[in-house]
């Protein structure tokens, strides 16, 4: 099964990335607002920085208790030397937690190239102009540091490769709109995460094979309650699995490890840097980028398209962005009488029993309505 292959790639990511780093430079990025195409166009392999659930003694010795567990776990990986193969580390101003984590990363992990990308928090002509300049400056600084050329031609090629990924992922996601999706939500997340490790061209080949293997409408999801999951960074398929074991099927999401990153392609008709800046700033937003009405409209679109019956808003503890926006989302769904469950979680899947109970109770409530 292809899905097993994706799972294994992500599971053995350090092995894979370490081998890649012997052939070319590997640059880690944290926030999905970092235009990976620029790193790829520079002949390097972009990879998403993530953590590994376990203990975090190195990070704990430095961080205050209110550091979100996603940051705590990936800093632990950096401090332990798991990311020693990186030539660069890039983050965008996506949230306070990751921005501050960069301070610690720069001073403790000491990756050769470190870059911080300013990110406007609202969408306007003005903010777009500013972001275009920031994206162009990132390209220049990357090229200057590594003494490479990142021309428009290479950027166009990178955009094509990444757009192909976007199209394939969207096609895969749309299979989940069927009544009996051929893959579960947990499996979809595993497929997605493999893409954060692999070279995109190779990833596209694997995605194509997977799509050939899957038959639309022939899956195990029939009759299960269809859910949408949104909220904080989520790369652990175990969390989705837990929800699905409780009797639901996660058919879609509003996550930075999901639809937000691939729903729309980058415009290939415009000059590449301009197109990248436009795409990243104006695509489906995380709560950092306002106005939130765009996101609410997108959620409604997904709910209709994927025949969603309930929404789970999962929030990493200490995620102030999702923590401060929760009343807004709750009110939006409650006013419509749409089932909505908010849960707080840790990056590592702790309190699984409690979570399972809450999800089961939520699903029972929906079953009455449906």
């Amino acid at each position, binding site marked *: 099964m292809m899905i097993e292959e994706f799972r294994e790639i992500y599971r053995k990511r350090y092995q894979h990335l370490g081998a890649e780093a012997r052939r070319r430079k590997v640059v880690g990025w944290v926030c999905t607002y970092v235009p990976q195409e620029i790193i790829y166009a520079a002949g390097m392999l972009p990879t998403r920085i993530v953590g590994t659930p376990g203990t975090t003694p190195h990070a704990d010795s430095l961080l205050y208790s209110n*550091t*979100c567990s996603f940051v705590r776990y990936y800093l632990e990986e950096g401090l332990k030397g798991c990311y020693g193969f990186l030539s660069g580390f890039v983050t965008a101003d996506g949230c306070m937690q990751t*921005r501050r984590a960069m301070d610690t990363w720069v001073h403790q992990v000491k990756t050769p190239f470190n870059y911080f990308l300013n990110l406007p928090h609202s969408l306007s002509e*003005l903010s777009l102009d500013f972001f275009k300049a920031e994206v162009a400056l990132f390209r220049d600084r990357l090229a200057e540091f590594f003494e490479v050329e990142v021309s428009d031609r290479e950027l166009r090629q990178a955009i094509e490769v990444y757009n192909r990924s976007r199209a394939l992922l969207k096609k895969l996601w749309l299979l989940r709109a069927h009544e009996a999706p051929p893959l579960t939500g947990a499996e979809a997340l595993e497929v997605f995460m493999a893409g954060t490790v692999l070279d995109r061209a190779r990833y596209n080949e694997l995605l194509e094979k997977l799509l050939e293997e899957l038959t639309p409408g022939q899956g195990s999801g029939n009759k299960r309650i269809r859910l949408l999951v949104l909220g904080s960074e989520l790369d652990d398929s175990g969390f989705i699995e837990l929800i699905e074991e409780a009797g639901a099927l996660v058919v879609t999401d509003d996550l930075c490890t999901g639809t937000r990153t691939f729903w729309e392609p980058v415009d290939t008709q415009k000059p590449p840097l301009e197109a990248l800046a436009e795409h990243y700033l104006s695509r489906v937003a995380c709560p950092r980028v306002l106005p939130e009405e765009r996101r609410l409209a997108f959620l409604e679109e997904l709910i209709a398209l994927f025949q969603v019956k309930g929404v789970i808003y999962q929030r990493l503890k200490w995620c102030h962005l999702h*923590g401060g926006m929760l009343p807004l989302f709750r009110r939006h769904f409650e006013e419509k009488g749409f089932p909505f469950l908010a849960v707080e979680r840790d990056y590592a899947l702790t309190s699984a029993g409690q979570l399972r109970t809450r999800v089961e109770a939520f699903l029972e409530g929906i079953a009455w309505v449906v």
Partner: protein
Amino acid sequence: MKIEGMVEEFRGRLEHTRKRQPYLRSKELFTQMKLNYFERLLRAQQEGEPIVWVVWSIPSEIFLAMDIATFIPEQYCLQMSTVDQGLEFVDLAQAEGMAPEICGAFLCLYGGAVAREFVPPAAIIGSSVPCDSALSVFASARNFYGCPGYELHAALWTGEKDRDRASIEYYKRQLQGKIHFLEELTGKKMDYDKLREVVERSMKAHSYLVRIQQELRKAVPTPITGREGIASFGILFQFWGTQEVLEYCQTLYEETKARVEGGEAPLAEEEHRICWLGAYPYYDMKLLDRIKVEHHTEIPLDFNNFLFEYPVEDTSDPLRAVAQRTLGMPAVRFVYPYSSLRHEFLTQVREFQVEGVIYYLHFGCANTAGISAPMREDLKAMGVPTLVVDGAPMDRRVVPVEEQWRKIDDFLTTVIK
């Protein structure tokens, strides 16, 4: 607390200052300035004028030049906590779904909004600075009221001159956008001559503050108490551009200069000097007095003052000057990447001859907590000890004040002495 109550509170404070501390002209001016602000707000409310909610980091000069009343709800909440009020709104916000780990001032803001405790906004102007709590809770409040909004993005200074200049220019252009937004909202037109006057006053006031910090507070013994420094500098944002703030800053400068020249100090027997970073327990600022009285220790360097930018001398482009001043304010710069302020911070620690740093952290502030890690490492390398005190600026229930004091007392007794 309704605005009427706050007006009464400051009338009482003003009377008290006049009676008990008539020699401190700056303090009287400061209290008068705050009273005038709340009276103006009350008048706006009574006369049905549009009132705009703003985050504290949004500069006030434009509003002043357009004669638009503003309300800074999170600061108002902190003000409420000084008279032991507002906790019911913290609880209410959580009942509405706000995450409990959001900064208490912003929880109070949202709870107060839901309870209709505050003056309702005609519009809400949010910002990326100071934090994610501000950004997300302001967005939720705007959604709750269903009012229009405008966002100001403070692109963070990285220490690279070209990028920092671009950040100022970008902020300036957003201020222009803010003017258009306000013109449409209120029907008032910006009088650019008036704006120029306001900005000139504002930059003059700012230059006094910079001089107090850079020229005078380094003196041993330090001429201003920690509490005076914190109170005076920390809450000026809503007053920039007023005649009162200019008069206040000038008076404070002259009083401080006279103290330095006369070798006077509020704490003549100053034995130790520390730096205070992070938030403050607004509900019990006497904690800072105890440091002074019980340990003969002063705070010449603090969170609100530790990174003062140079005076903004060129006001030929008023909006650019406002942008530069705003983005260069210490509490704003504290949000920037550590690498952009590291050198300056460590230089100031040396120049102010501080022997230790008290870092007041609270779970609601990912910013101050996050930057504390590399700061502490650097201070350790310099041989300057750091104490982390857990607290909360708004909510005394989080960590009892006596527990906070015990840690500070131990630190000053065993490490600094």
